[in-house]
């Protein structure tokens, strides 16, 4: 069970972490290994957070943003997987699949924002000399604010849907799917991918 206040808090805090992906710093606050435990604390189970963080960190380690290539959003994947995991009372399979799909959806929203930015930057080209620096400063503020509120909006729209989905799917015997022992195996996939990546590149 996650309360409305918790949903709101997760949206606000996860959106700050989203800023680290591109618009500010890249200190790696947006990585699953940081996002997982942090959101885990907010929903009252930091252990789930570490679990999800470790599994997703290993899988997403080798996805890198080179040039114009934008990989699926790892922060949105972690947050949505974790929230689904809690809502489904620990169904790992559904939470990971939903998280990955929503991470891919977030990527398309990100691409759309980058396309919109191409139009916004012309604002400086048309500016008179006296206002050029002001407009550049405002554009930087716009970049931060638009990214933040884009993420908040995304989560505020997605969380009620996840809540509805998980409540209803629980009625059709979601519990039939295994969970407990599967957890122990999943880190192996990320370990294998990382070994292969390091050996081949």
């Amino acid at each position, binding site marked *: 069970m996650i309360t409305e206040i918790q949903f709101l808090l997760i949206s606000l805090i996860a959106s700050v972490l989203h800023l680290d992906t591109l618009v500010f710093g890249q200190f790696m606050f947006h990585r699953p290994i940081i996002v997982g435990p942090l959101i885990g604390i907010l929903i009252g189970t930091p252990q789930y957070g570490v679990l999800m963080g470790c599994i997703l960190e290993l899988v997403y380690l080798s996805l890198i943003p080179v040039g114009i290539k934008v990989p699926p959003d790892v922060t949105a994947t972690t947050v949505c997987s974790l929230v689904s995991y809690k809502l489904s009372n620990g169904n790992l399979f559904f939470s990971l699949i939903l998280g990955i799909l929503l991470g891919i959806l977030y990527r398309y929203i990100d691409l759309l924002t980058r396309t919109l930015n191409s139009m916004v930057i012309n604002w400086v080209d048309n500016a008179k000399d006296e206002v050029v620096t002001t407009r550049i400063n405002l554009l930087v503020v716009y970049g931060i604010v638009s990214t933040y509120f884009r993420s908040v909006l995304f989560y505020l729209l997605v969380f009620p849907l996840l809540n509805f989905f998980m409540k209803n799917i629980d009625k059709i015997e979601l519990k039939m799917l295994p969970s407990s022992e599967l957890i122990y195996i999943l*880190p192996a996939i990320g370990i294998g991918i990382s070994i*292969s990546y390091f050996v081949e590149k």
Partner: protein
Amino acid sequence: MNIPVFFSIFIRSLFLQSVWNYERMQNVGFVFVIIPWLKKIYGVTQKFYERVKTHYGFFNTHPYFANILIGITMRLEEQYAKNEISSEEIVKTKTILAGPIAAIGDRLIWSTWRMFCGIVVVGYFLIHGKNFYNEANISGGVIGYLLLYNFIGHLPIRFFGLYLGYEYSKEVIEKLAKFALQKIVDVIKTAGVVILLFIAFFYSLSLLDNVLLVVLFWSNIIVSIILHSIILHKKLSEIYIFVLLLCINTLLFFIFRL
């Protein structure tokens, strides 16, 4: 160099990608970073606005290593103000160096250092065995990861990149080339593989109370290595492997009621 201006540029460089766009990529961020330097050289004059608009063109490189190029541009702007070089030379230098610097950054940071730090912290958690999420010190692992990544790799590259770019100008690229970066990458990657095997071995020991789990664990490692080697040449995402193996494992657990 003027220390307050240097720090202002360093802090502003954290916003380099704030308005990343498909047309001119990091152009807004680049101009935002370099404004204090242009103001210092030209004051708020017609020349200052001219230079701001010149730098508003296309710019794209690795966000950490960009500071080297920002430092080089600062030095070149000084020379331009003294009429020692032309404006075209500054633009040309930025364009020519952005590609190689991005390649170094992508290889050294995104595909080596970030991966290595990720492996170290995940290793720290997994080494606690199958119930690692209950037993490991969570805050210690998370803070350790951030300190390792940022204070050994990220921030020194940004800080010294800016300083060295300004101090040595274009020569800094030659100095970087002599730095044997490929050897560093190879050493980190070898260490990464050793750590991963070490993690896998000790983690699987904690699964020994159910031998089938140990077999499944190692089978998953081997299958994901094979699948990754195959998709690497097809340029597919690693997520496909994860989803595929997640489905297969769920099915196996369901059938055998594990």
